[in-house]
């Protein structure tokens, strides 16, 4: 009798649960990646971050010199600092901190056209680390293994925009034990450390929100892309830029009416993306691009053409279910690949993209919203806790080589 009652209760509960689950909007689907259903997790209470007080020459003065840093695609480093200063995960007591953050804006030395020059960044970071290791004991305790740095530049902490040179330099020796929060991600690449957190590049949220069109506007463009195919200034013959993939897209599909691709700079770029089903996100000089963020926000299925790329928050977001991955050697068959995707799969991908948490996870809104990219970074850091015993060094033990690296990096900044 008792068992019957319990069974009935369980059944009733299950029924009620399934009803509430079914009430879930049929337009969207829940997103759960390899780390589980973690996109909506709240990091507050799971970790404590201590923000070092660096002199303003490392952050504020740089920003004052060039305020363009607030709107370019590397602005995540600045907004992360601002977010952490006022976040509940911040602690003023470094003894109880799990993670230590160094607010240094290494990607803010811009050319007149707005591209960041990474040549002084290694010296800047080195001098900052020298400062924190001498003023606080926490760096030497772990040689940076419980510190994290935001390095959103092209190849992360390799601090160079040319891939060959970046590979030659490798990750800055002093940062090899720290957790790097970077936009660059490619498997088996020198510039991606084990345990790094990949983030999306910064896209201005106000501009994006302002350009939404009514959702009932029918999606009439099949494949959309706007951007360079040949970088005529640096690689006129083609073959270096994008490993030849963008040029292949152009040469194979310039005559194809299903592919709306060109090098134009239309003012209706965001609106057009909302009218397209597939948005190409091929690699450029680096595999990552703000196009991924734009495609996700506008509900256009991203077609990622970059071999071995590691996409943002790869453990929280199941990118294979959301986007389409095409190997660079399969680019000539891109039209066959895209048209052979069954419509149900396409509709499912669109439903996943329509999940508001998915869109929010790609953006850096100010003020911060729950589930946005800042929170995903903190969630990623929280998932790495608790630190293993190997993180803490025995007294007198030294692992990092402070004199490693090219001679030019050793000069003071």
């Amino acid at each position, binding site marked *: 009798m008792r068992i019957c009652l319990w069974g009935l209760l369980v059944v009733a509960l299950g029924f009620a649960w399934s009803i509430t689950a079914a009430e879930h909007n049929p337009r969207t689907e829940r997103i759960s990646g390899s780390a589980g259903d973690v996109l909506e997790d709240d990091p507050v209470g799971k970790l404590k971050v201590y923000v070092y007080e660096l002199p303003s020459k490392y952050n504020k003065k740089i920003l004052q010199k060039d305020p363009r840093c607030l709107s370019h695609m590397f602005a995540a480093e600045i907004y992360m600092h601002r977010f952490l200063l006022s976040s509940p995960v911040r602690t003023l007591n470094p003894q109880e901190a799990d993670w230590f953050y160094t607010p240094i804006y290494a990607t803010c030395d811009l050319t007149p056209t707005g591209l960041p020059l990474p040549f002084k960044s290694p010296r800047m970071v080195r001098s900052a680390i020298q400062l924190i290791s001498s003023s606080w004991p926490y760096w030497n305790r772990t040689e940076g293994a419980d510190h994290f740095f935001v390095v959103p530049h092209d190849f992360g902490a390799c601090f160079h925009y040319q891939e060959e040179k970046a590979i030659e330099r490798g990750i800055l020796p002093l940062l090899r034990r720290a957790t790097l929060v970077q936009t660059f991600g490619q498997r*088996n690449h020198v510039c991606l450390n084990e345990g790094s957190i990949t983030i999306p590049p910064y896209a201005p949220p106000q501009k994006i929100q302002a350009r939404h069109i009514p959702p009932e506007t029918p999606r009439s463009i099949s494949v959309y892309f706007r951007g360079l195919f040949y970088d005529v200034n640096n690689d006129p013959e083609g073959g270096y830029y994008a490993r030849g993939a963008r040029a292949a897209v152009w040469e194979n599909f310039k005559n194809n009416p299903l592919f709306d691709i060109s090098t134009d700079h239309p003012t209706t770029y965001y609106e057009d993306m909302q009218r397209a089903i597939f948005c190409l996100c091929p690699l450029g000089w680096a595999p990552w691009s703000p196009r991924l963020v734009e495609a996700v926000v506008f509900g256009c299925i991203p077609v990622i053409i970059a*071999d071995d790329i590691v996409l943002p928050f790869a453990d929280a977001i199941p990118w294979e279910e959301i986007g389409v991955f095409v190997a660079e050697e399969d680019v000539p068959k891109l039209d066959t690949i895209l048209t052979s995707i069954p419509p149900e799969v396409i509709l499912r991908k669109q439903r996943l993209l329509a999940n508001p948490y998915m869109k929010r996870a790609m953006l850096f809104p100010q003020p911060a919203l729950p589930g946005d990219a800042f929170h995903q970074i903190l969630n990623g850091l929280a998932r790495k806790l608790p630190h293993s015993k190997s993180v803490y060094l025995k007294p007198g033990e030294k692992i990092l080589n402070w004199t490693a690296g090219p001679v030019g990096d050793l000069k003071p900044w």
Partner: protein
Amino acid sequence: MKLSALHQSYLSRRSNSFKSSGPLDSASDAGYKSPAAVFWLILHGLCCLFSLVLGFRFSRLVFFLLFSTSSSNLYTPPFRSAAELAKTLDVHSGLPTNPVVNNLRFPMPNNTATNSRVIVGRHGIRIRPWPHPDPVEVMKAHQILERVQKEQRLQFGVKDPRTIIVVTPTYVRTFQALHLTGVMHSLMVVPYDLIWIVLEAGGVSKETASLIAKSGLNTIHVGFNQRMPNSWDERHKLESKMRLHALRIVREKKLDGIVMFADDSNMHSMELFDEIQNVKWFGAVSIGILATSVNIDESSDRKEEEENPRMPIQGPACNASNMLAGWHTFNTIPFAGKTAVNIDDRLTVLPRKLEWSGFVLNSRLLWKGGEDKPEWIKDIDMLDGDVESPLGLITDPSVVEPLGSCGRQVLLWWLRVEARADSKFPPRWIIDPPLDITIPSKRTPWPDAPPELPAKEKPELGIQDPIVKHTTKTRTSRSKHRSKRKHETRTDTQVSTRHAEQN
């Protein structure tokens, strides 16, 4: 840079081979030099000489043609010495069979020995042999587009869409095919159920029937015994009568849906059909009036060009609180005295005060004895005289619902363009039997046409000079009619051309 390294290694080997065998032994990796290795060395040397002479890296080209067979494996041995190159040459043999890879050049090796498959450096641009769309794939893509748009409509579009009942008065004339096809194609794309009531002045004709049969829509083709008059006033009156007749059909058949009036020369946007689904009982939309005038007064022209030329709109006007406040109608004053009276006049054709096409109504308004029919609708059977606009069907004009964000969106455009009343056109626009007269004319109506070629090489297609046409027509009709072979026709006409020209 790489070439010079090869050169150096080659030269050193060459010189070594001519000198004593001691240094040769130390230089080569293997114990002794096999004839094959020597052969490859000499071959490589010859290739280097070739490229010196030709001025480009000929040997590289050969290497790449040989290496491009292994397109899956991108890892390549580093370029060090000629001996190693010779070894690698041994490994790969034969020319590539891979037709896909074009323009492939050698990827440079990675400096760090990681397990990465992806290599930094120059890559080939892969172009497939026929870079054009495949029609089967294009069809599949269109099916995908349709499915996605259907899903969008299901999610964001109108819930429970109602049938649209379209009323179109028409009659057989030169431009009927032009106008009616436009309306027909618009209606064929509408995603909702449709019933098309086509009323024809002058009775049901095969022309119209064949035209609307191509649509595949659910049509009701009704004939009206009166012929369409020539003057615009009379024509508008007859059209109003035909539309009322259509409303009577709706009432008789108890058709359920939204009634809209699509005149055959109007242009409709697809948003119109989405917007009218929102009507409750009686709605109005804004029409753009494209009344272009052929002869405009110069003074008024200049004035208009200074300001921004605006398209006149007919439709509901709203006040600040989005309630219906009045009506925008067409300003006829600038056109006073210059309007077309008859269809033949080459003057502006003006719309009425309020066109029928700007109004939509719920078909239940027309049903006899409807349960929740509002009181302000007049009974159609009681209507006697002329109804200028649908506002004549209701007693209280303030109940009209303005659609299209309160009349701010122009959803359809009005235009009346007609050919002369006596203009002739081939029935169903099919020329049967096909024209077998292909004489070019000496005098073309186009002043900048190229000069005619000499008589022997006259082009096939030409303009028919009426005089010539008559003479040749008689000639060809005299000779055998249709059972004739083509070339005989041609020779006949050639003969007749010469005769005609000599005339």
